[in-house]
């Protein structure tokens, strides 16, 4: 019982907050920023995958689309970075409306393929519309300053960006805990029942899709300002895959698990890059396969189940083979 109380929210939330606050003291600051940006991106993807039962393989469109929008606003308007970043998130949300409208009517694997295809369309547009996006060169020299305050030092920019990341994570958490989130979960578990109860499930799914896109856009915008450039890499489909990979590694349907997945993957990629190993797909792909084959609950999900099992040792542990997505099919 004590353990299960320890696993309760306040302690863990405080631990997570402390970890986020001290991260750039222990990790190279640009990498720390990457971790928190990807953590928010992963949470946004999990909002759909884990809580609505929709695997989006096209969220690069929102992360990368917002990267361009944020970069363009910051470059051409001279407005401070928070405005640019929020503008990017709004752009991502607006982009998600038509894409979501067409996609949410499809289920499971169809949804994944169609979102992937739409994201690729965004990629091609970004690639060809050179006047606006810079094509292969991307957008460069995106300013990092706030009312004359120079934030080009990654260490300081990390703390300037952190409130937005935490705000985004809090929003995701509130969405999941809200009555709206409960409806999403009921759609995930049994769409027909949710419809029979009178919920317009496509409208709920679309709203979840747009919210998820806005949070992804927020993360992508902060990532872009932090690095000072936006590139085609951000809208490429491997970016979508990477976010899904972090969610699966951390644990689908756990929201916080994505942050752990993000930290592990970003650190791994950074380590491999410093070691001069460019073909990171060999390692990350292998990890992904192992997780999908043997470890489907992910790091966070497994840890949570272990704690829960210990707390209720008297009763046999529930058989949770597979994760919550399965309920969606």
């Amino acid at each position, binding site marked *: 019982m004590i353990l299960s109380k320890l696993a309760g929210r306040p302690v863990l939330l405080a631990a997570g907050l402390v970890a986020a606050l001290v991260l750039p003291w222990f990790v190279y600051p640009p990498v720390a920023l990457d971790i928190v940006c990807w953590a928010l991106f992963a949470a946004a993807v999990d909002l759909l995958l884990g809580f609505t039962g929709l*695997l989006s393989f096209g969220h690069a469109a929102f992360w990368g689309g917002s990267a361009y929008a944020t970069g363009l606003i910051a470059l051409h308007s001279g407005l401070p970075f928070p405005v640019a970043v929020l503008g990017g998130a709004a752009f991502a949300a607006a982009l998600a409306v038509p894409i979501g409208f*067409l996609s949410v*009517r*499809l*289920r*499971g*694997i*169809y949804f*994944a*393929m*169609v979102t*992937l*295809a*739409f994201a*690729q*369309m965004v990629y*091609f*547009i970004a*690639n*060809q519309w050179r006047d606006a996006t810079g094509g292969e060169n991307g957008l460069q020299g995106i300013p990092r300053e706030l009312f004359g305050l120079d934030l080009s030092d990654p260490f300081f920019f990390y703390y300037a960006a952190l409130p937005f990341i935490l705000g985004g994570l809090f929003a995701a958490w509130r969405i999941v805990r809200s009555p709206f989130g409960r409806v999403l979960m009921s759609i995930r578990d049994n769409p027909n029942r949710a419809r029979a109860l009178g919920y317009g499930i496509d409208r709920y799914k679309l709203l979840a899709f747009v919210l998820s896109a806005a949070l992804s856009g927020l993360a992508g915008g902060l990532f872009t300002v932090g690095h000072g450039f936006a590139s085609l890499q951000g809208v490429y*489909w*491997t970016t979508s*895959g990477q976010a*899904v*990979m972090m969610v*699966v590694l951390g644990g689908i349907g756990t929201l916080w698990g994505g942050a752990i997945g993000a930290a592990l993957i970003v650190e791994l990629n950074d380590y491999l890059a410093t070691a001069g190993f*460019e*073909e*990171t*797909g*060999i390692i*990350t*792909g*292998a*990890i*992904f*396969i192992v997780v*999908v*084959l043997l470890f*489907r609950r992910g790091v966070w999900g497994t840890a949570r189940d272990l704690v829960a099992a210990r707390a209720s040792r008297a009763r046999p542990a529930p058989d949770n083979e*597979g994760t919550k*997505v*399965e309920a*969606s*099919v």
Partner: protein
Amino acid sequence: MLQQAFNGLVGGAFYALLALGLAVIFGMLGVVNFAHGAFYMLGAFGSFVLLDSFGVNFWLALLIVPVVLGIAGVLLERLFVHRLAPLDPLYNFLFTFGLALILQDLVKRGYGVQSQPYPRPSALDGSIDLGLFTYPTYQVFVLAVSVLVCGAVWVVLTRTRVGMIVRAATERPELSRALGIDVARWVTPVFGFGIALAGFAGVLAAPMRAVNPLMGSDLIITVFAVVVIGGLGSVFGSVAAGFAVGLVSALGNYYVPSLSQTLVFILMAAVLLWRPAGLFGREEAL
């Protein structure tokens, strides 16, 4: 203009071959194979390596590579895909995504990102006079072969006993099982066959397209759009949509070059608005 249409059909031949493999694998196993493009790439690299290191010519490669990849596909299905099959289809999608990353980066590590040269087989060098215009012989050959292969698969599926079983198991696996058909026995060879087709397309692509590790990853997204347009469960729809998309993109490229790459996705959006299950898909498949 007519020549553009012909270009489109040749491009569509690759879409059709890949979409056909994807469709039979999906129909039989319910698996969307993300690694399909990677196997296409392996097919092209396989023929390059066979020629470069062993002096094996194009015609033998056209035979050897699909067989080897087909066997690899059978092993893959037995060892991994099979285990994930009872779970949510998303897990196999994610599994094959990881596999695609590994295959692509393994080849990249071995050969770099530069394109490898592959000469046209001497018998198919030069061009043919098609009456209205002359056209490279090799491209005509590709088109003919892929039409032939798709046609042969069609005949096997509709006219033979094996085809009947596969179609039955594809469209109504539960009912087929209830009627005493051992669906599980056909799943593995069908998976291997789909992979072999992707490899076959790769060998065909080697002499006319750049052989590099990334050649499959961009193509596969377009092929996904193709099968969505055709209807994911429909073999006929996938092939027809493959050629149609090739044709539309080539003509689009001719008239509105700036739209060339996005046209197929615009087409997909339009089809989805009109028929969410694809042109030849069944609504219930959603």
